[in-house]
């Protein structure tokens, strides 16, 4: 049965999980946990924070699954929750940093997720230059880019996550891409 759960569509798992089936929920978590983790790592720039985010999102998802109108859309929903939680965490971290004084006001989100065990995965030169260009972007632009390209969120969804207008999302995303294109072309 457990193995069968791993081959059934998302809607079946989400429906069962909403009914209280923990095995189905865990199967969903295994299916999309790596994507959630990758997204949270890019957004928070911290391995430990990313795993905290994934855990918090799973707790929230279990509590709110029965409010999900379209069970087949559970993947996009989990990634939206991951985006929101990651942004919340960055805001908390910033508030904390400003309380502890300017000397500690190190923007931890500027830490490149490229530094760390991840480098053990052989990365192409294109990826390396994109990572470098990404970490040099203004924070707001980088968030828009990650929510769009890694989470696959729409302009409207990104706008709600970041609490800005869809027009701002469009502008920031375009500026992010323009800068990234330049950096990448320079590298070429």
């Amino acid at each position: 049965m457990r193995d069968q759960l791993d081959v059934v569509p998302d809607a079946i798992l989400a429906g069962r999980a909403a009914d209280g089936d923990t095995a189905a929920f865990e199967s969903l978590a295994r299916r999309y946990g790596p994507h959630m983790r990758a997204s949270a790592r890019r957004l928070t720039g911290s391995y430990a924070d990313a795993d905290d985010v994934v855990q918090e999102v799973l707790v929230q998802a279990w509590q709110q699954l029965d409010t999900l109108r379209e069970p087949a859309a559970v993947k996009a929903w989990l990634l939206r929750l991951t985006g929101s939680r990651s942004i919340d965490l960055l805001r908390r971290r910033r508030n904390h940093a400003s309380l502890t004084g300017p000397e500690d006001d190190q923007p931890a989100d500027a830490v490149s997720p490229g530094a760390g065990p991840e480098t053990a995965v052989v990365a192409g030169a294109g990826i390396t230059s994109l990572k470098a260009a990404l970490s040099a972007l203004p924070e707001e632009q980088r968030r828009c880019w990650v929510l769009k390209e890694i989470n696959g969120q729409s302009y409207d969804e990104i706008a709600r996550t970041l609490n800005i207008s869809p027009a701002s999302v469009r502008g920031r995303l375009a500026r992010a891409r323009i800068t990234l294109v330049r950096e990448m072309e320079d590298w070429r």
Partner: protein
Amino acid sequence: MSMPHDVFECGHTLEELSLYLDTGEFPDPPHLESCPECRSGLDSLRRLSAAGEELFANDLAAAGSGRDDWMKDILANLTLELRPGRSIPLHSDDPADTLSETEGSVIALVRSVADSLPGAVAGKVRLEGDVTVPGEPVAVHVDLAVLFGHPLMPRAASLRQDLATALARHTELNISAIDITVTDVIDAPREEL
């Protein structure tokens, strides 16, 4: 190739092209075919997009598998509360006793009966009707995924029978209907099962 300006000589901008790639919206679509600057801008944006996909594939590989220890640790730390649902009263010989079972336990029963059928996996289960009042008619709805290669109709017929038997044995519900909806036929490679 360099991109010194955000605004091309044709008057269009990289922001417009960025929006076009995401939404397909552009004020003058035929222009994109003929303008070398816009085409080159689109090419650059597409290369960036491809690099983004490559980065994501790399990040995903680095994040590990959902079967690894990190996910086991996270799952072990979750405390998933039960979902009891409505309370279903049960008959008692002694009026001083109040007996009941939970809707969640009946739904779990339906699910396990459906799962025990070879090639079938239950999805969402719903009990329609007022289960809190004894004798009220209750319709059972089950979503079902069936693995490819298992016959649908005989599966549904025998499942309906199995469910009726199990519900009669383990509950006092007045089952008025058992609706089975096959929502998915799964083309699962045998060796992965």
